[in-house]
């Protein structure tokens, strides 16, 4: 998929370069792209290191577990059959609270564990309604602390890297709600 995108980028550039007589600018632009990539990475390194450290602290100090306890009643309503199985509900709350804290790397293995357990209980190779809901919850990504993005903003010289927080909250809340609503409506077409 990405290889395809790369080739399209190159062909479009070449054709447009010939068409608009800007061919001589292509080679310097190619060097410039790689240079800028390294510059962005270097300026991102410090804040990314620090935030990944803070993320580890949140995981180890039990902040994720605490958030999970708060979320339990809500998740129980969204995933009624999982609520009866404490193991599934445990994986689920861990997954959602890790996502909330912006700990993407920690969220994935727990999400996988939750889907595996759901599959074992549900049986078959067809996605259940609750699995689809879990996918929506994960792909719409509700984040309280979008740390990677804030690190990127500060690396690019933002005056207030966290100023986007309310925007991220409102935006991800909307997308989760609409996504769950869409799942509820689509469910009727996939018996």
């Amino acid at each position: 998929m990405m290889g395809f995108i790369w080739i399209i980028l190159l062909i479009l550039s070449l054709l447009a370069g010939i068409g608009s007589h800007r061919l001589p600018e292509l080679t310097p632009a190619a060097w410039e792209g790689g240079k800028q990539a390294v510059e962005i990475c270097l300026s991102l390194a410090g804040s990314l290191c620090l935030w990944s450290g803070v993320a580890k602290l949140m995981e180890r100090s039990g902040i994720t577990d605490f958030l999970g306890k708060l979320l339990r009643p809500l998740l129980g309503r969204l995933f009624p059959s999982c609520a009866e199985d404490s193991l599934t509900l445990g994986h689920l709350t861990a997954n959602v609270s890790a996502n909330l804290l912006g700990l993407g790397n920690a969220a994935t293995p727990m999400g996988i564990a939750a889907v595996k357990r759901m599959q074992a209980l549900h049986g078959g190779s067809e996605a259940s309604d609750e699995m689809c809901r879990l996918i929506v919850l994960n792909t719409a990504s509700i984040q309280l602390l979008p740390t990677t993005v804030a690190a990127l903003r500060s690396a690019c010289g933002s005056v207030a890297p966290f100023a986007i927080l309310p925007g991220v909250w409102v935006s991800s809340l909307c997308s989760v709600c609409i996504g769950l609503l869409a799942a509820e409506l689509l469910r009727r077409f996939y018996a």
Partner: protein
Amino acid sequence: MLDLLLPLILICVSVIALYRKQDVYGCLLEGGKEGLRLLYSILPALVVLLTGVHMLRSSGAMEMLTELLAPLLTPLGLPVEILPLMLIRPFSGSAALAVGAELMASHGPDSLVGRTAAIMLGSTETTFYTISVYFGAAGIKKTRYAIPAALIADLTGFLTASLTARWLSCL
């Protein structure tokens, strides 16, 4: 208020971890190494994509594409510059991060485009990757309505990202 946020998070998390008898410094270092590993995996993607994006821009193709698609995006309030990010977001996390970083670097992180890109990155996920990893691991073959529902959520995220980015500039 926002000036307090970062120091407060650092202090609270560290104190709670200390109270729970965790090796605070060790955890910070261990997590930091994971951060570097993430950086290590982003860099090659960033080089490849930024090379492509820079060539596309200098050739004039970006301007043509932008002009072509402006009538479609402007009524929705989406800045046209953001289009590459929307196209790549569902497929690759590191590529989306690369395109977002480029938008922030070239338009400024506090500009409308920069803010929209940041909010989009923060409020959406790599949909196809997530679905393939989760369902692949559990052996789910029939995904039913998971993909359309997740894509509707992504589209909502894109639209609300541009709305909230505008709204934030009014504050």
